[in-house]
């Protein structure tokens, strides 16, 4: 077991301040603190080589959990064991075997070319010369950035910077990758390149990857297993397709009509979710999807019909809104 988290709890103490001038004065004289619980009793374990996606709404506690695992935050209670280390102790061998890439924060030196950051990382992680040269050449080729590594980082575009961030983060061949929204803000092509790079790295090095994201495509492409966190609690931990089957009790019939049918007519088939003639989307219970399809074809002027699994996005949205009630 590479990663083992047991009953993790993390509370923050936040200073609350009333707006306005009087608020400032009163907060100076008698400061008011509130306790925010970011993570409430989360437990899970991940084996070596797994690629796990963390999803959840903003403020769910996924980044907090990630930060506890990387040793940045001190847990309020609970225990974390990663590769036999306690992350918070930040022992050198532990830090050498992990890496953290944050989509919203730069780790590269802004005014220098990326090549300088790479060299710095080489020294920090004590990567031997030969291995460094080989690894760097490999990554630079994979990411197609040969003529960019000597350009000041401030002059690179977001996508190019992200590529450099990844290269810098993986030079020391860490065994555990913590990725916090790595594809955020990137265009579709770049997102694919980043995902491919991560996938190739994972396969070649048998590393373990923990990824937080808002993009379902990240999850679909990379993670075989997902963990859903909301309001600091673990809602789901398991395979992606099981999630679909467990939480989506319906299927989608995607219809193209030959001639206009009144929306009410669909009531006998199922729930009309969207109707934009000639397209119609109907939800039907999972078990009855074949029957419903047959009925549809018999009674309605159907030009084209597709039976589909529900969108992961829709499922996740349903789960989130259900829990909020």
């Amino acid at each position: 077991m590479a990663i083992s988290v047991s009953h993790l709890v993390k509370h923050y103490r936040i200073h609350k301040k009333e707006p306005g001038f009087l608020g400032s004065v009163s907060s100076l004289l008698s400061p008011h603190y509130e306790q925010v619980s970011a993570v409430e009793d989360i437990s899970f374990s991940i084996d070596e080589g797994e690629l796990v996606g963390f999803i959840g709404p903003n403020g769910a506690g996924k980044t907090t959990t990630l930060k506890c695992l990387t040793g940045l935050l001190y847990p309020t209670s609970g225990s974390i064991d990663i590769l036999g280390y306690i992350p918070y102790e930040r022992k050198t061998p532990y830090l050498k075997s992990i890496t953290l890439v944050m989509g919203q924060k730069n780790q590269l030196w802004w005014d220098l070319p990326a090549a300088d950051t790479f060299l710095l990382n080489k020294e920090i992680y004590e990567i031997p010369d030969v291995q460094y040269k080989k690894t760097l050449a490999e990554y630079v080729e994979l990411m197609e950035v040969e003529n960019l590594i000597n350009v000041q980082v401030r002059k690179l575009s977001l996508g190019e910077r992200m590529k450099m961030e990844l290269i810098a983060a993986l030079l020391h061949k860490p065994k555990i990758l913590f990725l916090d929204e790595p594809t955020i803000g990137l265009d579709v092509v770049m997102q694919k390149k980043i995902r491919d790079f991560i996938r190739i790295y994972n396969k070649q090095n048998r590393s373990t990857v923990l990824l937080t994201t808002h993009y379902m495509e990240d999850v679909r492409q990379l993670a075989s297993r997902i963990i859903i966190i909301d309001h600091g609690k673990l809602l789901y931990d398991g395979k992606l397709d099981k999630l679909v089957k467990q939480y989506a009790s319906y299927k989608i019939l995607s219809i193209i009509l030959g001639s206009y049918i009144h929306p009410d007519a669909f009531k006998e088939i199922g729930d009309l979710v969207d109707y934009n003639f000639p397209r119609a989307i109907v939800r039907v219970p999972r078990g009855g999807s074949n029957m419903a399809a047959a009925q549809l074809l018999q009674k309605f002027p159907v030009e084209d019909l597709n039976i589909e699994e529900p969108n992961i996005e829709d499922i996740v949205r349903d789960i989130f809104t259900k829990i909020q009630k």
Partner: protein
Amino acid sequence: MIYRLNFIFWRLRVVMQILVVYFLWLALFSGRNELFGYNQSQMLTYVLLTSLARSIILSTTTMEIGSIINQGNLSNYLIRPINFFRYYIARDIADKSLNVLFSIGEIALLYVLLRPDIYIQSDVTMIAYGTLAVCIGMTLYFYFSLLLGFLGFWTPDVWGPRFLSFVIMEFFAGGLFPLDILPAPLFALSKSLPFFYFIYFPIKIYLGQLPIQEIIRGIFLGSVWVGVLWCAARMVWQKGLRVYTAEGK
């Protein structure tokens, strides 16, 4: 280009500071041989030496620590196998070396231009003690600055306290004038503060104006201060890490 201009103005500022205090004392000494127990040569030496002392002892790269913590950039350091303290010690050594190089150049230039009558220490033991005192001063200021930076774990306003410390230090470190010209109670107060060892103490040793018992006593007390601040810095760092939220822009 911008960086080069920045550099020139920085050195110009340093030189201006020395000149201002230098000419002030020159003016004060006009028509006098002795002031506050110092003759002109000693006072002017003191002034020029404060500039050198500042460049060795008071130069530091640790000013940014407060904002590094507040903006969550501390995470970049925590996530890597770097010893935070050793990192800044190394950076400070580099920074001080650079500063000293320029400072020596500037003082040499000023000496050639102004031709002050300065006092050169020849006693090797005094120089040795002086060097020891400088080391104590450097270490003290390093941990002091770290502690100010660590306030960032608890408050977004780190500059307030730091600025206040600058003001207090200007007075009590002996950077503007030798501390023993102060009235006795103030001088006694200054002796009990760590700032005493930043500038005043090392320079006094160099000027050969302290009896040996004073020197030994001072070095002992200075070392005690080093121990105290070292422990405080480590403790505050550990405590700070526990409340670090890793948030920021």
